């Protein structure tokens, strides 16, 4: 098991190194050079030189690269060129909002998806199954930001139940925090739930068809115990993988949804930085989002050891 975990950690570190390297070179491949792009064509040579020096672009490439990597490791993320605020401060301001939306979205999504998938698989070809399947179909067909707009119209504008704009930090009370986050979270959670529901359903159907389920039947296990004791854990193994991969959907969704709800999170930061060609901020934001995604999937890999004894004991049968 430890060998397996070590492998997964090494893999995650390797991927993050590749990502950081690519982001480093990506900036340097901006057509016409990043400084020109940032300052515009009319900038004076002095201003260009000053910014190049400021960003360290005047030094040899290997030196820049090593600096970039060491800065990342010590979390010295540079300054925004438009406000000269520290990038780390901007991120610290924005990230909790986006990650809160994503977190609550995932929790809501799983809370809907697992029961819905189980329902679909156990009541196969009954009304409940058709309803769950259709809902899941519609769910994977809607972009999160559109779900957000619909929710805002219905619950914010028409019913007036929940606020549709802004964010309140959790330090000002859990209830206001949750009120502001609920609609955005549902907006990212529903498409996520749809994908996981479909996987849960098909995985459980496959599991119920396995030889060991026939064995359980043949030894007189009741149907509920068959489902929850014998089938569930096996069926969850592929679901966990999909739940990890689909986090991409949640993170991407959060970025768009927070714009719908006027929340100044990572998405707003990212879009603005791109439009303002504020590359130091863009770099770090992208890196952060990928980092969160890779880290979450590392956690998923570790969750595997808990649910798949073939990995836990000796094997690496993944």
């Amino acid at each position, binding site marked *: 098991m430890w*060998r397996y975990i*070590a*492998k997964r950690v*090494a*893999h995650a570190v390797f991927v993050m190194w590749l990502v950081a390297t690519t982001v480093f070179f990506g900036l340097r491949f901006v057509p016409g050079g990043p400084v020109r792009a940032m300052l515009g064509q009319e900038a004076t040579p002095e201003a260009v030189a000053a910014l190049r020096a400021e960003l360290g672009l005047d030094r040899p490439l290997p030196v820049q690269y090593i600096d970039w990597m060491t800065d990342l490791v010590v979390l010295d993320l540079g300054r925004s060129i438009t406000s000269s605020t520290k990038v780390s401060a901007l991120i610290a301001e924005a990230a909790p909002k986006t990650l809160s939306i994503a977190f609550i979205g995932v929790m809501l999504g799983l809370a809907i998806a697992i029961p819905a998938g189980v329902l679909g698989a156990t009541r196969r070809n009954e009304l409940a199954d058709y309803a769950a399947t259709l809902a899941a179909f519609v769910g994977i067909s809607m972009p999160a930001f559109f779900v957000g707009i619909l929710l805002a119209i219905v619950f914010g504008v028409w019913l007036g139940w929940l606020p549709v704009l802004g964010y309140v930090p959790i330090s000002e009370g859990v209830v206001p925090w949750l009120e502001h986050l609920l609609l955005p979270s549902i907006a990212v959670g529903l498409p996520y739930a749809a994908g996981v529901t479909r996987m849960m359903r098909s995985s459980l159907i496959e599991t119920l068809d396995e030889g060991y389920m026939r064995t359980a039947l043949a030894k007189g296990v009741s149907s509920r115990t068959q489902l929850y004791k014998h089938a569930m854990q096996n069926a969850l193994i592929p679901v966990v993988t999909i739940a990890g991969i689909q986090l991409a959907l949640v993170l991407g969704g959060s970025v768009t949804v927070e714009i719908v709800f006027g929340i100044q999170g990572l998405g707003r930061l990212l879009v603005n930085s791109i439009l303002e060609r504020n590359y130091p901020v863009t770099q770090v934001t992208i890196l952060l989002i990928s980092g969160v995604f890779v880290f979450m999937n590392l956690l998923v890999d570790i969750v595997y050891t808990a649910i798949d004894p073939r990995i836990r004991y000796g094997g690496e049968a993944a």
Partner: protein
Amino acid sequence: MSADGDQAPAAGSTGKSANASTGDFADAETVLEADGLEKYFSQSDSIFDRLLGGGGKVRAVDGVDLELRTGETLAVVGESGCGKSTLGQALLNLHKPTGGAVRYRGEDITGLSGRDMRPYRAEIQMIFQDPLASLNPRQTVGEILTAPMEVHGIGDSKADRRDRARDLLERVGLEARHVDRYPQQFSGGQQQRVGIARALAVEPDVIVADEPVSALDVSVQAQILQLLEDLQAEFDLSLLFITHDLSVVRHVADRVAVMYLGEIVETAPTDALFETQHHPYSEALLSAVPRIDPDARGGRIVLEGNVPSPINPPEGCRFHTRCHRVIPPADWEADQAAFRRAFTFRNRVESGAVDPEAARRRLEAEGEPSDDDAVAAHLLETSLPGSPSDLPSATREALEEAADLLVAGDEADAVDRLASVLSSPCQDETPAVVEPDPDRTAACHRTDPDAPGSPPADD
């Protein structure tokens, strides 16, 4: 192992090659030959594996010498995981051998590139186990049969090749009009006929048949065996027949090679092998085959434990961990059966299967005393077959000490303690391949007059 070593003449045995009745391929020319052939599969699949070490190599085929003679049927028989299928594919260069050599009519074809190998592919063909899986589901039978001809430039035109395909179908007992059907539209037996036709399409000398009938029902299996036999006579084929089924071997093969854990342990003419076995594994394998005729049943030899992993095969003779004829050391005071029991205990301890904690838990659960002595006694009782009382006293003491060491958590010392009294030449030295009878080979210390240890007369 009956003392009678004479070969039973195989008069009129119809299931064999044309000249099988003479029972003698000893002088025939060798057509395909393996010389110390090795195929190891690497287990470490990524750079992390290499960094973290481990992985290891599966030694699927480990130093096999084998020769297939013109016109004969040579069966390679063994249980699953013994490497027989890998051997077949390595002979055809479908797995690149990692060591040793393959020769076709004396020419070295080991590890040739695709292009260099191509001419030989017209001479050596293959039939597969799963008839449906071996046929491309997206191609008609006609396409499947003409493709090899195109590759090898057989036939003048498309139409000519198609005619040949129709002929081939009839020759294997199908109808020419089936040429436009897809594999799924045939029954299992018919699919295998198509597979045979494909092998024949390039007019080969040698066919390697990997379990060609084991996926088929017995009545259909007989049809295919009969077909193979007819075709072998008609085309003068040499057949390497890979199978796990000794009953089939008896009917089709002229000679047999018995494989265990990547090695060939015995080769012999079929009838001779079924008469006497020089290797204990062959003996056990043969004794395990169920028989319809009550008169033909003998005592089954029950082998100990499971086949060891080919990643880390046992030292010396690979069969020694399970062998019922394992040789005691020269100074062993009791009989071989007693040695075998004690040796089994040693093997279990060495493989790490003995778990004192689980034993203690069980004793506690049963309300028995669970102090160290009781646990040690329990370990001896459950992991040693039979009773320790009729073992030589020195051995008994060693076993008891080893059990105590295990309970004390000192597994390494327990292993050493057991090794000090329970050694066997079978473990210490790799048996040489000897020729106990004409045209037979075996790799067992018992058949090797020069081998260490005195084979005790316990038969």
